[in-house]
């Protein structure tokens, strides 16, 4: 199993129970659970829907690990406003219908206070609509499609990862400058791929470029026909917009056909989980990282990274950070609002700046009030094979693009309305 123990057993029947199974963390909890118990209050329940199985599972597992890590940290220090935190994780199986069922179950049956999820944009989109219908605060940690905080933004929905437009805007200029204006897209045929490609195309058109594009199923595995066409088109850059396993498979076949000699690679996301899984010749190209572990001199980052790597024996990725920030956002909101009502929490989160030990990067990181989108830095740079003795050193940051700059509020199309 790729998944570590903690998410292997979904901690749905109370996370302390699951947490106790976590060895080291269990020990830490035994030492201080009285803080929580002494208050004797109802636990604070967080529902988390993520695709623990299916082609995006390696990303989802990291998010859930980050969330568990935050929950354990918080419970060790007395919970959220004195209440023990329980994390209820459900598997959406990378299927929108299942995700919708699961979020309803979390709300109707487990009576969770807040919800979060999903890596898959389409599921994130659909379940945040359910949360709105039910009047529950929802955080999307890692589903990128624009309308969630764009034209379909809602008073109760916040998002940590970037919009596809932010990611595209942060890297488009670099790709054009470095390689040229003739692009070929291989794009997954769902919400994420559609908006991501549209954002790239918009930038490319502005620069007077040309492109061809191909939409493939989200879990596609044979890319030979598409790569044949890509090769025939002779682009400067191949933008591999697929995610998770599909992106990895596409990269492998790209190398197999020897196409790395003909065109550059690039695009929005090539996450560390995926970079590690492709052959060295495909560990290349210019991409965005939405958070990067190697930030010398930035406070608190090293502690977080070491904590994750030690506990899960794998690199600390942006997905860990998403899950971590998600849980802490609830804590910050509840404790500042002194309420758990969704509307109060929403108003509190609007404009809220993350403290440095949560932001874990330089500059001001805050939830933009107008669209509820977190405004972190986007780390644009080059992916490369690992340096000697440093297996996770796979990316060199060239530019830090502030999120607010990557996509100004006016361009999101969001008109926030609140329940009367």
């Amino acid at each position, binding site marked *: *199993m*790729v998944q570590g123990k903690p998410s292997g057993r979904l901690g749905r029947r109370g996370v302390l129970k699951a947490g106790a199974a976590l060895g080291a963390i269990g020990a830490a909890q035994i030492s201080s659970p009285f803080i929580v118990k002494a208050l004797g209050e109802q636990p604070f329940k967080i529902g988390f829907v993520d695709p623990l*199985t299916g082609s995006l*599972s*390696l990303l989802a597992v990291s998010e859930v690990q980050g969330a568990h890590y935050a929950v354990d940290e918080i419970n060790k220090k007395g919970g959220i406003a004195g209440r023990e935190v329980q994390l209820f994780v459900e598997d959406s199986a990378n299927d929108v219908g299942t995700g919708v069922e699961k979020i309803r179950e979390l709300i109707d049956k487990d009576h969770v206070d807040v919800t979060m999820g999903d890596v898959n944009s389409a599921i994130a989109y659909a379940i945040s609509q359910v949360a709105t219908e039910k009047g529950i605060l929802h955080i999307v940690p890692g589903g990128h499609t624009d309308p969630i905080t764009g034209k379909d933004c809602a008073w109760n929905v916040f998002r940590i990862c970037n919009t596809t437009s932010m990611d595209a805007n942060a890297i488009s200029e670099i790709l054009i400058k470095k390689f040229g204006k003739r692009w070929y897209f291989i794009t997954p045929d769902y919400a994420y791929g559609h908006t991501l490609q549209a954002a790239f195309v918009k930038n490319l058109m502005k620069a007077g470029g040309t492109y061809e594009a*191909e*939409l493939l199923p989200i*879990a596609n*595995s*044979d890319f*030979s*026909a*598409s790569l*044949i*066409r890509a*090769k*025939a088109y002779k682009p400067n850059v191949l933008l591999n917009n697929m995610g998770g*396993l599909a992106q*990895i*498979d596409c990269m*492998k*076949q790209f190398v*197999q*056909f*020897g*196409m790395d000699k003909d065109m550059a690679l690039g695009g929005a996301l090539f996450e560390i989980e995926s970079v590690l*899984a492709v*052959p060295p010749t495909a560990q290349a190209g210019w991409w965005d990282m939405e958070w990067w572990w190697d930030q010398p001199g930035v406070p608190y980052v090293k502690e977080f990274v070491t904590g994750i790597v030690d506990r899960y024996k794998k690199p600390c990725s942006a997905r860990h950070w998403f899950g971590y920030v998600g849980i802490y956002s609830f804590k910050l909101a509840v404790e500042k609002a002194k309420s758990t009502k969704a509307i109060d929490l929403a108003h509190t989160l609007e404009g809220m700046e993350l403290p440095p030990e949560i932001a874990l990067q330089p500059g001001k990181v805050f939830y933009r009030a107008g669209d509820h989108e977190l405004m972190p830095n986007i780390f644009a740079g080059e992916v490369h094979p690992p340096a000697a003795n440093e297996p996770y050193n796979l990316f060199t940051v060239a530019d830090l693009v502030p999120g607010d700059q990557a996509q100004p509020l006016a361009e999101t199309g969001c008109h926030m309305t609140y329940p009367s």
Partner: protein
Amino acid sequence: MLQLVLFNLFNGLIIGAFYVLTALGLSMILNLSNVINFAHGNFLALGGYLAYVLIPYIGFWPALVVSPLLTAVLGFVVERTMIRRIYGRDPIYSLLLTFGLAFMIQDGCRYIWGVNGLPLTTPASISQPLSQEFFFLTGYRLFVVGIVIVAVAALFAFLRYTRMGMRIRAGVLDLDTVSALGINVRLLRSLNFAFGIFLAGLAGVLAGGQIGLNPNMGDDLLLPSFVAIIVGGMGSLVGTLLGGLLIGVAAAITTIFYASASQAVIYVIMAVVLLARPRGLLGEEGLQ
């Protein structure tokens, strides 16, 4: 443009070869045992994974034979312990049984080898593109086509010229009579099932070398294989062969002109065949 057409035709041939290999196995089992083997794609994946385990010890070439054999042995055991018990009962039970097995094998592979795909190392001698211009013609892809041709020829020779092959063919037409002639029909079915699984295992190793291994790798092949059987005509292995090649190449040609309809064309072919010739291209009249 010509180059593009050639590439796609050849690609269609390879995809068609995989359809053929998968569909022939399915078809053999369907014809003699009256079982739709939903787990066929998962046996295929299992074949690939077994090769992954074996290659470090015995190398690629022996693994190409040994891992399909092991998969076939597993298929034999599954047939003897489970599938055999539902022969002669409502077809609903065989459907459900193999459906459940499919879930179990898929998740078992995921549990053992991980969700993250694994590479299947192929010998360097056949891994390189043959030329920069014909980058797509890797030695491996030619090799795949060659192996499939050999396997299919061997299968048909076996069915035609060996005693057991003749019994299998006779059993497809009239199992009761074959049984009345004193032939051990139970063993015949078990072995036939194992043959079908062997083909799946072989397809798994070949596909693994081409696109890598993952627990769902057989899923994309299963439904087109069903279509290949329907188009070719139920009860006819030659029909299955034709059906598999036809839809593989048709999809590839469509890809050249209108990529996103490449899968739709498979279903269009099926609908046309069902309307114009309900028993399929070479289907037996009696079997519907």
